[in-house]
């Protein structure tokens, strides 16, 4: 496994380099710059600002400088938020997104797994139709609809939770449900599919023929294989949730990373775009690696090669 992990870590280097290169040149190719504004500044001011941030240098030199600094852990200053560095902004906002993602994933798993398992155990019954219908609703109802509905119901009408902000536990509930409900729906569908697939296989019939109880069949034999599709999905799902959701963060005014991920591109905040993209890519690479390891551990037919 050590060799496997080392190889994957080495493979990540060119991947990140390609991502950084593509992002760098694409964001610089977009019309408009970080300092273009509706009120035109004097040419002298623009020249001085560009010089201060090194934007007056040839693009290849800017690229080299960026890479050199990034390798040394310096992601540069944010062009938009003048008194903050990119590392600071990511450092401040990522814990918020990670916490939101954690609660959302907890909700998603707590709802999605039992619903999917139940539906698979009693296919074509109301225990299948009801959770799966709700799951379908969860997939179909976009977060920008669910979020405001929850805020209006539980934030304003019932006054149980706050309608926006990120200060106390009351602020965590509604965005976590909004984000988690969508993921729960997917997990329920995937769990049902995976479980049905496994439950129809020969080794399950054998186990039952040997007199194993339904609970033993479920937990000892079926779950391992049945959850493999869910585990594959969890990698990108966790990455998406802990790097934040722009929509949910906007609806509930959560100070997470998702907002920077989207808005930095609109602001032409070059360093912030690169920083968030590289960070996001690293998280995905890392989580995919974790998922691969888990899959091998759960499925004896797979090996670390």
């Amino acid at each position, binding site marked *: 496994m050590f060799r496997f992990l080392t190889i994957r870590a080495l493979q990540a280097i060119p991947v990140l380099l390609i991502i950084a290169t593509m992002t760098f040149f694409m964001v610089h190719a977009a019309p*408009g710059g970080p300092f273009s504004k509706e009120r035109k500044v004097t040419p002298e001011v623009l020249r001085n600002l560009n010089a201060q941030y090194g934007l007056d240098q040839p693009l290849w030199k800017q690229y080299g400088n960026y890479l050199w600094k990034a390798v040394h852990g310096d992601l540069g200053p944010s062009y938009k938020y003048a*008194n903050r560095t990119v590392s600071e902004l990511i450092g401040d906002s990522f814990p918020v997104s990670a916490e939101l993602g954690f609660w959302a994933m907890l909700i998603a798993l707590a709802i999605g797994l039992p619903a999917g398992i139940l539906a698979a155990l009693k296919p074509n019954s109301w225990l299948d139709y009801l959770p799966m219908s709700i799951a379908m609703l969860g997939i179909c109802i976009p977060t920008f609809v669910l979020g405001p509905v929850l805020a209006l119901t539980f934030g*304003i009408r019932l006054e149980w939770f706050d309608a926006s902000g990120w200060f106390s536990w009351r602020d965590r509930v509604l965005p976590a449900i909004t984000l988690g409900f969508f993921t729960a729906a997917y997990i329920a569908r995937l769990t049902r599919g995976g479980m049905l697939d496994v439950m129809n296989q020969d080794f399950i019939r054998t186990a039952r023929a040997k007199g194993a109880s339904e609970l033993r069949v479920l937990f000892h034999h079926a779950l391992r294989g049945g959850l493999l599709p869910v585990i594959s999905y969890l990698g990108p799902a966790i990455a998406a949730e802990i790097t934040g959701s722009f929509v949910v963060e*906007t609806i509930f005014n959560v100070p997470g990373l998702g907002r920077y991920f989207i808005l930095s591109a609109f602001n032409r905040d070059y360093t912030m775009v690169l920083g968030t993209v590289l960070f996001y890519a690293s998280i995905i690479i890392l989580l995919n690696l974790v998922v691969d390891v888990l899959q091998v551990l759960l499925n004896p037919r797979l090996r670390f090669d």
Partner: protein
Amino acid sequence: MVLAFSLMLGGLGCHKEKKTVLAQEQGILLINNGVEPEDLDPQTATGVSEHSIFLAIYEGLVSEDPHDLHPVPGVAESWDISPDGLVYTFHLRKDAKWSNGDPVTAQDFYDSYHRILTPELGSDYIYMHFFTKNAEAYATGKIKDFSQVGYRVVDPLTFEITLTTATPFFLSVMNHASWYPVHIPTVKKFGGLARKAAFWTKAGNCVTNGAFTLQEWKQQSIIRCVKSRNYWDAKTVKLNEIVFYPIESSNTEERAFRAGQLHKTNELPLSKIPWYRENRPDLLRQEPYLGTYFFRVNTRKPPLDNPKVRLALAMSIDRKMIVEKITRGGQLPADSYTPPGTANYTAEAKIPTDFAKARQLLAEAGYPDGKGFPKLDLMFNTLESHRTIAEAIQEMWRNNLHIDIGLTNLEWKVYLDAQDTENYQICRAAWIGDYADPQNFLDMWVKGGGNNHTGWDNPEYNALYAKLQNTSIPADRISIFQKMEALLMAEAPILPVYWYTRVYLIRPEVQGWYPNILDHHPYKYVWFGKPEASH
């Protein structure tokens, strides 16, 4: 699931004390500031959200009356103006202090103004100082000796400013953030004088001289300003704290307001205005705002190089319909450019909505009943209301002039790039005044004006502007403004649509928040009181 969740949490109770009530008891004002400030350096920041916070934590030589914003003493307790209107001598008060206890002196202003005019700083609002003698020459590197610029420290409590030409509205201009002083030792300590991106504006580092000081700044979450013990007029300040939230979505802030989390919103979604007007008028404010929504026309591109075509387009816009059916926030139809009542000036020249006249002008331009008129393109940046207005105007021109206009929606920076390079035919635009004087609206259309972007160049207009620079008699200035606006309306390089309003929600217990066209609300005059005492 929602039902089960509701039952599970039923024990939470549904009558928790509202944040606004608790905050009011402690003298804390909770307001939404719209967006996260880019920085809190008054010499480099440019946005409205930043200025809203500067009003709490900084004070210039002059301050402004909360009702009508006329200049009142700030750090300077009095001032003298020379008979020719060129030299302003400010007498600073002895008890003005920075938040760290240092005295505020004339040298602070001198050094601060030196800083903003330093070319390397790259301040966007550097031009706000160009009223001062030789300031522009220094900022553009034509002179290197700052002592030639019209700022002079007479003694620690006397500061003198010499202007290039008499500028009657100069004291009002000085309430712009670019005229606030910064604490130079702090700026030097955390980054240096000429660096835009420096850490001196972080909470804990920041030293200010206003009624409040910056205590906490959590990015995208909260900015907390507390009453300054060192402020010279602390006895007037009633609030203990102001908390600024950066909620960007108007729907989110409206929900937060309803949930009792805010005393004041930044704006109000268009769709909610009728409801509040009908049901809760006590919470709704609609106030005139010094800004114009208009369309730029690229006068270099045929057939838009013909003033008759431009006038025909302008006359075919049903502005009344736009403000009544689309914007719905009490905006005024703009039949001229400068907002009415700007420093006692209201334009006499108008572009009326007159469909028959518009058709006649189009025919005179060679396009009777729209025949042969090439397909043009109207460009706007991404915002639902911009799209709706553009579609309405497209329909108006189709119905009234029988011409076909295409619409192009561009992302903000792409739109700015297209506008800057004049790579457009007709484009949406807006101008919000920095100070209440018609010059702030009319100077942008002179030849080479940095914000002109229309290619319009009228020698008579340029000559009037030059004449304005040597005129300080108010009646003469008004007369010149009228002539300039008449030329602008006659040639229509821009198509005015409406004059802005500020539409927002505010709790009735917030007192001292008076309507004014710059939307400036000096917080030292804001307090909590009984709703009956409201204006």
